């Protein structure tokens, strides 16, 4: 799950000015939330993990956009042209649906194992079916790596744009001063 250490690394996605101003405070608040989430069920913990990861990545992109001179992109006030949802919600219905799907997958694998066991191995035995738990854990780890990589790529693109001076194009005026 999302640990304090991983959280600190994800904070590197933010502009340095934002980290200097709020970094330690965000880590402190995250620590309190994480301690609270530890006592909750798996669904709530996954929801917490997804919400925090998505909030950090989108928050970092917004802050970079703003620092490039792009202004606010609907984080706070709906009067802007582009409006984004400022909070990530993880509906309980989704957790129920995921549980049902997981149960279905487990049942299907168990039935598959039973069929394999009932069929005599004539020549080519069916390959090993890996336990579903390890597959799920692997998927979660891959998800974390994917989010992190996507964030780093986004940050690199924004950083390259800033270095190239592309952001200054928005400040140019069509009329002579």
């Amino acid at each position: 799950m999302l640990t304090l250490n991983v959280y600190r690394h994800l904070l590197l996605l933010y502009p340095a000015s934002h980290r200097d101003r709020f970094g330690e405070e965000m880590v402190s608040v995250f620590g309190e939330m994480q301690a609270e989430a530890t006592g909750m069920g798996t669904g709530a913990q996954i929801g917490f993990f997804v919400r925090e990861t998505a909030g950090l990545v989108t928050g970092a992109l917004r802050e970079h956009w703003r620092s490039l001179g792009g202004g606010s992109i609907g984080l706070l006030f709906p009067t802007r042209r582009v409006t984004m949802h400022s909070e990530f919600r993880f509906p309980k219905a989704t957790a129920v649906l995921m549980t049902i799907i997981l149960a279905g997958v487990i049942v299907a694998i168990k039935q598959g194992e039973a069929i394999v066991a009932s069929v005599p191995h004539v020549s080519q035995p069916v390959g090993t079916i890996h336990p579903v738990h390890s597959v799920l854990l692997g998927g979660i780890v891959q998800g974390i790596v994917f989010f992190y990589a996507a964030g780093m790529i986004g940050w690199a693109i924004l950083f390259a744009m800033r270095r190239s001076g592309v952001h200054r194009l928005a400040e140019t005026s069509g009329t002579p001063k």
Partner: protein
Amino acid sequence: MEFLPLTEPVLLILLSLAGQPRHGYSILKDVEQMSDGRVVLSTGTLYGALRRLLDEDWIERIEEQDSSRGRQAYRLTTRGRRNLQVEVGRMKQLTRLANLRIAGKQA
């Protein structure tokens, strides 16, 4: 008022600070409680909002007595409170109009 109307999360953050100064975690929990669990903010979203509200001078940081845990408390400024009152007044007017229209009366 360039920034009005406010989004629901920002309105809830301001309402949370209207009663008393709060630090980040306290704001998150209060927002969740006020919205009956409907609005659950992430730290990234909260501090993006706080940064903007600080920049616009709607809120200000105050020294927390227990600063050993990296906590900072926030409170509404006079400007922030005034803007919040304007927004609540606008919503009251809208609610009154909506009630009249739903009841079938002309406003």
